[in-house]
């Protein structure tokens, strides 16, 4: 590459006392609840917000203040900002994709067929879906306690309705975050410039804060213009919400069909789909045999590349999930396509060997970024769903791509590659939304726009 002009940027000081903690701090939560709210009018919404703002954890309080057992986050849809009285001229300065919402953009992201928004949770497809309150809790008992508190609080404020909600719990055995297919999760970790967090070996170097928070220099070195008013948007972020149902029975059937009779062969197929063994060990470093110690060692489990260590994908297929969602040194501009993921699993674990019981289970997660179109939509529309990704033909991400039995997966091998045709859908998107996550000052702005009266209510702890 040529000499690139590197802009001189002063060290960034993050407004930790204003940023919601959500994208900065990963909390030790084993349970969560998402409540999707509607406000009958602006007054109701502001009253609700006034009494709950003090419960929202900031990047400076979370992890330091007591009680540190539950963590509250609040975000709004475009319709929600409008419902709270943000004026039309200001709303027009928000990005077009946020205004359209994920349902309005789903087809261009490749989210079609069984995952099409027409089949999503109806409560989240109406303009009446205004806000989400995300509760993360240290355990189920604390989650349930806080849920009761919030229900009592909402009951006191006429005109605030809970449209729907979702309970999430970590899957057993606890202590190792795993999703329903059994893969160890949370192995990649995006680090932000201006925090003390250091990237683990092999991870993406620290990313400028402006890639995640509005009002800071991004990876161009410049600071993009803020949507208006700045009192609302500074220190804010955008979130893409996805609830992804996992079809565990179909997944296990596939491993048996394509992996062969032995457990080892089936595990290898599972690894080829993901790019990591279910233990987390990456195929580039553990090509033929699983290495569970490597998998959970955060200092080693990301310490690999593709361009020199596995250029043709003999270890980790080019079309595997992790190689698509983070092509590492085989792509350009990586720092401009980062997202920070938060979320968890919902629904009960399907015991090994049990037939699929049809119960809804999966992952419900938020992808945080400064630009939905450049970060989330690129990852979803191109990395996950582009059939021609990296010179492949007719393939999509086997885990989170939209699959309907018409796409393939190529597993490079010598002397000849193995091609699995007709990958079934292991997942279906059941809900999606675009949200704006304001800073705490932004929340206060929303709570008092256009002459809002101060609330008499305050939610108890």
């Amino acid at each position, binding site marked *: 590459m*040529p000499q690139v002009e590197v802009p001189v940027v002063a060290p960034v000081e993050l407004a930790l006392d204003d940023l919601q903690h959500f994208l900065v701090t990963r909390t030790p939560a084993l349970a969560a609840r998402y409540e999707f709210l509607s406000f009958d009018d602006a007054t109701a919404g502001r009253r609700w917000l006034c009494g709950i703002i003090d419960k929202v954890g900031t990047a400076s309080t979370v992890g330091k203040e007591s009680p540190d057992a539950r963590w509250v986050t609040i975000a709004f849809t475009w319709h929600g900002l409008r419902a709270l009285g943000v004026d039309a001229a200001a709303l027009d300065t928000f990005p077009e994709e946020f205004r359209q919402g994920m349902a309005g953009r789903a087809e261009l992201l490749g989210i079609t067929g069984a995952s099409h928004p027409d089949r999503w949770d109806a409560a989240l497809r109406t303009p009446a879906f205004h806000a989400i309150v995300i509760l993360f809790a240290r355990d189920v008992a604390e989650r349930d306690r806080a849920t009761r508190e919030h229900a009592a609080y909402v009951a006191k404020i006429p005109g605030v309705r809970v449209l729907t909600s979702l309970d999430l719990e970590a899957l057993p055995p606890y202590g190792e975050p795993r999703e329903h297919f059994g893969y160890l999760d949370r192995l990649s970790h995006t680090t932000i410039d201006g925090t003390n967090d250091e990237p683990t070996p092999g991870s993406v170097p620290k990313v400028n804060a402006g890639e995640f928070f509005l009002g800071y220099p*991004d990876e161009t070195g410049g*600071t*993009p*213009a803020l949507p208006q008013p700045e009192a609302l948007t500074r220190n804010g972020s955008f979130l893409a919400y996805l609830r992804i149902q996992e079809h565990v029975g179909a997944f296990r059937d596939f491993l048996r069909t394509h992996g062969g009779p032995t457990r080892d062969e089936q595990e290898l197929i599972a690894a080829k789909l993901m790019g990591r063994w279910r233990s987390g060990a990456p195929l580039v470093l553990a090509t033929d045999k699983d290495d569970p110690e490597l998998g959970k060692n955060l200092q080693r489990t990301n310490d690999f590349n593709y361009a020199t260590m596995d250029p043709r994908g003999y270890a980790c297929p080019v079309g595997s999930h992790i190689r698509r969602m983070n092509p590492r040194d085989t792509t350009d*501009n990586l720092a401009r396509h980062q997202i920070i993921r938060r979320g968890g699993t919902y629904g009960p674990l399907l015991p090994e060997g049990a037939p699929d019981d049809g119960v809804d289970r999966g992952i419900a997660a938020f992808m945080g970024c400064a630009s939905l179109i*450049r970060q989330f939509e690129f990852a979803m529309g191109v990395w996950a769903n582009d059939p021609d990704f990296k010179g492949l033909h007719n393939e999509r991400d086997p885990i989170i791509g939209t699959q309907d039995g018409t796409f393939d997966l190529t597993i490079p091998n010598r002397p000849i590659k193995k091609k699995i045709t007709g990958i079934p859908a292991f997942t279906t998107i059941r809900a999606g939304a675009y949200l704006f996550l304001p800073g705490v000052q932004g929340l206060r702005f929303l709570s008092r726009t256009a002459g809002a009266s101060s609330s008499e209510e305050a939610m108890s702890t």
Partner: protein
Amino acid sequence: MNEKQDWTKPAAMAIPAAGYAKEVRGRYGPTFPKTPANYGFTIIARIKPGTEDDIRAHGKTLEEAVAGAPDVLAPLQLHYLRWVLFPIGADMYFMYQGIFDTDFDKYTEDAVALFSATGITTIFTKLEGFPEDWKTNPPAFVKFVREHHHPSFLEYAEYPYVSALEVKKALHMRQAFSTMLDESQ
């Protein structure tokens, strides 16, 4: 490879004025389809008065950049770039014609970043109407490109749909085969 993409059969495609026969939404607007001559852009814009010499001089700068780092433009998966300055009346216009394998709609931001890193944007900043905040505002950059793109109404290829990567692979194979024959003597 399906029949439509048979490289042995030269192919032409007539294209409606919109630039596409069927509207397919992309992230930044309707997408322009792949033709037998692959993807491409023909951007035509009036230059700011007095910048002609700077633009021509920049051709030399890019020649040196590519000589110094031959893979500098590799991410764009280009076949050819042709840059032309031409007058209409008293005004001078710039035409950027690029033929490439990358689906520009999909890799828009990467192309914008590469344009910036290699100094291609230096020329764009001399075009009238180019957004001042192009660096931190990719959507504005993309809007300019789309507004100044003039889709072809006909594209033809002697070896249709062949990517630059496939051309290079074939040449590598020929070279390897030739070496093998030499080594077998």
